[in-house]
């Protein structure tokens, strides 16, 4: 006989785990299906964990979650071919009992989160791919898996199957992902002894440093790179828009190789043993690319709904929050004995609109278009900034006033005065 559940969750990333855990804890019968061998085996993230989103789901997560380091210092670097200019922000205030950002490794983290789902009474089945949504007219009534006897039914299906959701596409919930709305990122983990990580970044115990990087390494493509410290390793990655990769004809791993060889980066990873290489897509279309989020008997959360804040490199927290809000919607409807019809599931959209998820995406809604139209943000400015710093720091007999004039001149020469003013205005509007 076919099985039936209150809810089926597809995917065991942050969005799926948040949804499954929240519903299971509330006593609903929940089935979670994941195609990976264990939760996390297929997942890629930098990865920074933002504590707040998880705290609202598992308040005491710090007791047993596999966290690598808590972030006490953030560096922003703009690279030129040979140099970089940057800022550091480091504060002992980040060494509180409840730090707000951690580096994590997704494989152990997702496994831990999934363990919580099971402990809360959720049924988790891995190595099983959902191939189709079972629909009765427009209404989703279950899922079909790749296994014999694989039809399973539920009152509601939450899609948390990550970027480029084939299921949502197949069911016609959203269209083809556009190359300009998705970034391709590659990353490597380099193993280094704990003491080496600590001394290279001037940190103690579990303190951590993150470096966000822009500039010449992306060859003018819209994209950024990052370097995160873990307990015994360093994660290094770079990502650019898929459409730009296509146009430029450069392979992502070429960028990563160049990044690793850059004089600012090479000494930080020197002697490391490469342990893991991964490539993954990131939905970066922002607010305008968010698809319909619910319908008859279904909701969609996390990356599969395009909920990523590319400007701040936030994704997992939006995923967890959307998963939680979808789950809370189901719980509320069950309590009121209301069916999971589209009008009732509209509460999910309302809750998302009311949360930081949609508010932040709305705030930056013009940014993707501006970056597309203004490639010099990623080519000309990094060079100019580095050259300016170089000019100011060279003690070569030239007076400082003339140096400033040279710098101003170089900016105007590369980009007209009006261009500069326009850029400033557009950026201000897009991020205001």
């Amino acid at each position: 006989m076919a099985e039936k559940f209150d809810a089926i969750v597809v995917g065991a990333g942050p969005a799926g785990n948040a949804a499954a855990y929240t519903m299971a804890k509330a006593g609903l019968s929940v089935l979670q299906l994941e195609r990976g061998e264990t939760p996390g085996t297929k997942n890629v993230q930098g990865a920074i964990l933002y504590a707040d989103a998880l705290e609202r789901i598992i308040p005491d997560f710090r007791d047993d979650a596999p966290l690598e380091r808590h972030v006490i210092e953030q560096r922003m670097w703009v690279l030129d071919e040979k140099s970089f200019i940057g800022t550091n922000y480091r504060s002992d205030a980040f060494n509180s009992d409840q730090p707000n950002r951690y580096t994590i490794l997704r494989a152990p983290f997702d496994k831990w989160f999934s363990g919580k789902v099971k402990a809360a009474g959720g049924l988790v089945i891995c190595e099983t791919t959902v191939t189709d949504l079972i629909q009765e007219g427009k209404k989703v009534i279950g899922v079909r898996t790749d296994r014999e006897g694989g039809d399973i039914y539920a009152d509601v299906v939450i899609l948390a199957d990550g970027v480029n959701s084939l299921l949502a596409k197949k069911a016609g919930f959203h269209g083809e992902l556009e190359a300009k709305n998705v970034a391709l990122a590659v990353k490597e983990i380099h193993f280094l002894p704990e003491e080496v990580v600590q001394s290279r970044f001037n940190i103690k115990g579990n303190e951590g440093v993150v470096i966000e990087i822009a500039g010449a390494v992306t060859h003018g493509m819209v994209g950024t790179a990052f370097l995160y410290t873990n307990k015994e390793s360093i994660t290094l990655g770079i990502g650019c828009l898929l459409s730009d990769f296509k146009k430029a004809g450069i392979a992502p791993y070429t960028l990563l190789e160049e990044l690793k060889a850059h004089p600012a980066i090479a000494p930080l990873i020197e002697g490391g043993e490469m342990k893991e290489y991964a490539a993954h897509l990131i939905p970066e279309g922002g607010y305008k690319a968010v698809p319909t989020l619910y319908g008859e008997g279904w909701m969609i959360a996390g990356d599969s709904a395009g909920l990523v804040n590319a400007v701040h490199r936030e994704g997992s927290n939006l995923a967890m929050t959307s998963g939680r809000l979808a789950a809370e919607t189901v719980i509320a409807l069950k309590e009121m004995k209301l069916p999971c019809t589209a009008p009732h599931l509209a509460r999910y959209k309302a809750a998302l609109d009311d949360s930081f998820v949609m508010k932040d995406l709305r705030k930056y809604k013009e940014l993707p278009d501006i970056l597309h139209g203004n490639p010099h943000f990623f080519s000309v400015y990094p060079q100019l900034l580095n050259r300016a710093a170089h000019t100011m720091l060279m003690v070569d007999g030239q007076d400082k006033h003339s140096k400033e004039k040279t710098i101003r001149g170089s900016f105007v020469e590369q980009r007209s005065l009006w261009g500069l003013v326009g850029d400033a205005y557009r950026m201000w509007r897009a991020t205001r």
Partner: protein
Amino acid sequence: MHIVVCIKQVPDSAQIRVHPVTNTIMRQGVPAIINPFDVFAIEEALRLKDRFGGRVTVLTMGPPQAEDALRKAIAYGADDVILLTDRAFAGADTLATSFALAQTIRKIGEEHPVDLVFTGKQTIDGDTAQVGPGIAKRLGLQLLTYVSAIDALDLQGRTITVQRRSEGGVQVIQTRLPALITMLEGSNQIRFASMDDMFRSARLTVPQWNKDRAGIEDVSKIGLKGSPTVVSKIFTPKPRAVKAQMIGADLDASGTANAILDILGSRHPRLAQELGLIAP
């Protein structure tokens, strides 16, 4: 027919790394898998069950986490699983391991007599290939090692015919039941579990047996106490130093060729004789 399959949970050796500084094996974060040889044993047992009916019980001795391996066995279609786990088993070598497993199989047999026991040929972490034979000897089972295929099973006549790989060829052997078979790799392909079995596996509470449940009274034969093996030293073997011999390039082509042949001849006199380089 009742088949017992012994499996061991092992670290996925493909993912083990050696700490570059301390040279120790880093087990942390290395996923645990069913010993690959044992997967062939599970599948072979299931195939016999498909053909002849009966039940398959999968047994492992290990820490509580080893229940993941048994959960997987249920997903493949095993009927029952038993996790033999007790602090008293800790530190067991092959002697103590085969004693504990044999004793447990004897106990299992009291409820459902056992016709066949399967193990893998060897594990990928301990590598000794001693546990299967150790069990067979203790239980008085016919022992068939290095089995690559099962040709026939006659439940009335109580015989089994298998192909066994040996040095230089394949032996076809027939023996009496009950027997113990150690399976070779590559002999079959594990099945893709059905949705029903996935549900059974996800919902299963894995039965745990401690030493008392397994009917083990003599604690001097299990765990560290029952393990005479002593690890005196662990080290990474140095790669064999390959000595390269340099030949001067100041000779002409035939001179160089002769120089090489001379060296070959002095190192491999028989080859040289066969090639007629030197007189017999």
